[in-house]
């Protein structure tokens, strides 16, 4: 079953885990997509806000600024004293109006037809207003120009008048002198008559009076003429005009009183020219009248321009209001979208958690984790020797397969243990059941020899002796066999022993003869170890050396070296040594290097030692090169602990 279903089921656990991850990923991705979509939508709203509404606010401010600027320019134009800046101001005004035209009509794209209609209407009326503004502006410029020109003209006329008046004054003075002297130049005949003299004097006084009056009147005229510029009311101007006419007529009348001299004609001509200067259609008065008219017109245009400016400003405000409304709508929309996004995120989070929890619980925990834990427990139990443990994990996946494999192992281990037990029982029973008749044979042989009535020949004695030897041998064999069967199967307990004492005990049990020594190299410490098997091993190795010794052998050395968790022991002799090709063989069962007649030995000592050491996970090996040097050294390690570490 395993082979066939293996391929199809092999992905059992892996597939499930992958599915789990896929599901979790899918849920997360879906959530992410939903969130991103909302985020996109939110982002769009924000952009719309920025692009459309914010630009409207910026525009509105621009417009306000522009309108103010324009107004300011026009006011400056009105207040201008000199004409140098007029050109610049004219240019700036045009620029500003053009600018306003473009910014005012920069609407954001309408959201619906109604708004489009509103925009169209706004465009039309704004254009009209701007046209009005423009025409007013042009008028203002024009009037201002006229005012400035007229002002200049007036000033010129005033100075001409001043000059004329001065000339005339001088002439009058001269004339006054002339007249005075003339009058005082009398003929002798005229001098005789006092009346004539008085008449002449009276005439000259008249002339002088007239001239003086004329001069005074001229001064007044000149003053009046000069003061005309300052008059702002039409009525005032009118009055001034009348006064001037009257006075000038007066002057003309006074002229008549003067003698008809050529100077009088010249004077008259000058006065006429002054008259003309002031009252001609192109004269001072007219110019002043024109100035007044144009100044009035200027003021009117300036005040009239406020209206369309105000209209335009109102449009701007309207746009701002509608933009504000849009912002509000967008804000509400944004808030909604944010809320929705938040809900979606939370939902996704919760959903993911639920999915993870669910899959974690069902797939990972139930299907994998629990079973793995059970399996681990089973493995540990069986490994530690509890072969009865039932492996209750199953399933059509890797874990199930491991479980069935484990069951197989367990059954094998059980079978092995059973067979081991069987073997032990067999060895035990065999040894015992063989021992009994062997004892009987031994006893019977002995009693036969002891029987005084039984007489043996020499051969007979020898045979009996050999019989007894063989019996002994078999006995030993059985003992060793039993020992081998038992070796390493009992769990000995650790006990405390002193290393030196261990050595001494071994020597005591060996009871060596006097012709060789047993030496000890090693520490004198208390250790905790498996004392019984260790004693067994040392005894075995040492007694082997003694058994195989030759006459030349003089010593056995037992060395102990303490390591971290194991100690190294060495039993060395200086006997005949063991040839290299037997270094493995000697540890096998029933192997002896000498015939059993030469050396009594079952050939099991080293096998038993090896089996014991195997049980404790130790190893033993022999170092010996008999053709180089005498002697052999058996080295092995053994677990231990220092006595005070416990």
């Amino acid at each position: 079953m395993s082979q066939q279903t293996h391929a199809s089921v092999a992905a059992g656990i892996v597939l499930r885990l992958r599915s789990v991850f896929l599901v979790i990923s899918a849920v997360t991705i879906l959530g992410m997509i939903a969130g991103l979509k909302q985020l996109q939508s939110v982002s769009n709203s924000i952009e719309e806000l920025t692009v459309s509404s914010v630009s409207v606010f910026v525009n509105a401010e621009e417009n306000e600024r522009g309108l103010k600027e324009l107004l300011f320019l026009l006011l400056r134009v009105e207040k201008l004293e000199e004409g140098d800046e007029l050109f610049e101001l004219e240019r700036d005004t045009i620029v500003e109006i053009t600018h306003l035209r473009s910014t005012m009509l920069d609407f954001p794209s309408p959201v619906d037809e109604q708004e489009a209609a509103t925009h169209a209407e706004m465009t039309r009326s704004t254009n009209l207003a701007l046209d009005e503004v423009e025409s007013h502006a042009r008028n203002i410029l024009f009037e201002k120009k006229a005012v400035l020109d007229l002002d200049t003209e007036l000033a010129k006329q005033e100075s001409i008048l001043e000059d004329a008046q001065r000339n005339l004054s001088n002439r009058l003075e001269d004339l006054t002198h002339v007249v005075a002297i003339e009058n005082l130049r009398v003929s002798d005949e005229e001098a005789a008559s006092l009346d004539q003299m008085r008449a002449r004097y009276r005439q000259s006084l008249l002339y002088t009076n007239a001239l003086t009056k004329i001069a005074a009147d001229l001064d007044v005229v000149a003053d009046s003429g000069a003061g005309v510029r300052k008059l702002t009311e039409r009525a005032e101007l009118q009055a001034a005009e009348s006064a001037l006419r009257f006075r000038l007529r007066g002057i003309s009348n006074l002229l008549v009183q003067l003698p008809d001299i050529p100077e009088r004609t010249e004077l008259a001509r000058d006065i006429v020219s002054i008259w003309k200067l002031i009252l001609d259609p192109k004269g001072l008065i007219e110019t002043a009248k024109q100035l007044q008219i144009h100044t009035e017109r200027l003021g009117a245009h300036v005040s009239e321009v406020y209206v369309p400016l105000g209209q335009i400003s109102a449009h701007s405000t309207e746009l701002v209001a509608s933009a504000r409304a849009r912002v509000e709508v967008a804000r509400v929309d944004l808030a909604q979208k944010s809320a929705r996004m938040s809900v979606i995120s939370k939902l996704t989070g919760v959903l993911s958690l639920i999915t993870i929890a669910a899959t974690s619980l069902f797939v990972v925990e139930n299907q994998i984790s629990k079973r793995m834990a059970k399996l681990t427990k089973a493995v540990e139990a069986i490994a530690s020797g509890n072969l009865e443990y039932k492996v209750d994990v199953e399933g059509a996946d890797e874990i199930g397969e491991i479980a069935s494999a484990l069951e197989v192992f367990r059954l094998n281990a059980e079978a092995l243990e059973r067979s081991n037990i069987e073997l032990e029982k067999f060895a035990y029973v065999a040894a015992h059941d063989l021992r009994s008749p062997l004892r009987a044979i031994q006893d019977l042989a002995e009693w036969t020899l002891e029987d005084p009535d039984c007489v043996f020949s020499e051969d007979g004695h020898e045979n009996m002796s050999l019989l007894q030897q063989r019996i002994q041998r078999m006995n030993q064999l059985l003992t060793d066999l039993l020992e081998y069967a038992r070796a390493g199967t009992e769990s000995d307990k650790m006990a405390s022993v002193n290393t030196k004492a261990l050595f001494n005990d071994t020597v005591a049990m060996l009871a060596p003869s006097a012709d060789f020594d047993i030496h000890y190299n090693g520490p004198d410490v208390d250790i905790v170890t498996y004392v019984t098997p260790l004693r067994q091993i040392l005894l075995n190795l040492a007694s082997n050396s003694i058994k195989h010794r030759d006459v030349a052998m003089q010593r056995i050395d037992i060395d102990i070296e303490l390591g971290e968790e194991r100690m190294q022991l060495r039993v060395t002799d200086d006997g005949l040594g063991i040839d290299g090709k037997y270094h493995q063989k000697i540890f096998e069962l029933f192997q002896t290097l000498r015939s059993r007649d030469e050396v009594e030995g079952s050939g099991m000592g080293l096998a038993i030692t090896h089996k014991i050491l195997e049980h404790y996970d130790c190893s033993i090996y022999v170092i010996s090169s008999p053709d180089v040097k005498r002697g052999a050294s058996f080295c092995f390690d053994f677990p231990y602990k220092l006595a005070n570490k416990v």
Partner: protein
Amino acid sequence: MSQLAPDAMHSLNAEPVKFLVVEDDSVSVMAIKRALKKLDITNDVVIAKDGQQALDILRGENGESKILPPFIVTLDLNMPRMDGFEFLAEVRKDEALQSTIIFVLSTSDAPKDVSTAYQSLIAGYIVKDNLGDSFVKAFDMINSYSKIVAMPTR
């Protein structure tokens, strides 16, 4: 029964101790008899060839005459019909036989056998090794035991 054995004045017990030897191997029985002879032990010896017969002798059943105290039992472990362990279990169950003094004489030196036997409160466990005079030593000890130790009289 009232006749005193020659060494009775050294003994604590009123009468000489009898030996009930439970052993199935005839050669072993022969060896025991020879050992006793060597030790000059003249106490009565009764042989049972398995646990069942030994019980019958202890109870006086199935045609066997009852053995009366004081007596010491030596017990082999490997026997047919009822082996040593079964016999021990039976004896210790029986109120009348509970306090019987039993020495195990066995070829087995397995620690398990030793501990199991002692759990049935034997007086001692002696291993029959194949040295010729192991029976001699054993019975020498048992004899001294019988002379020094007070036996139950019931």
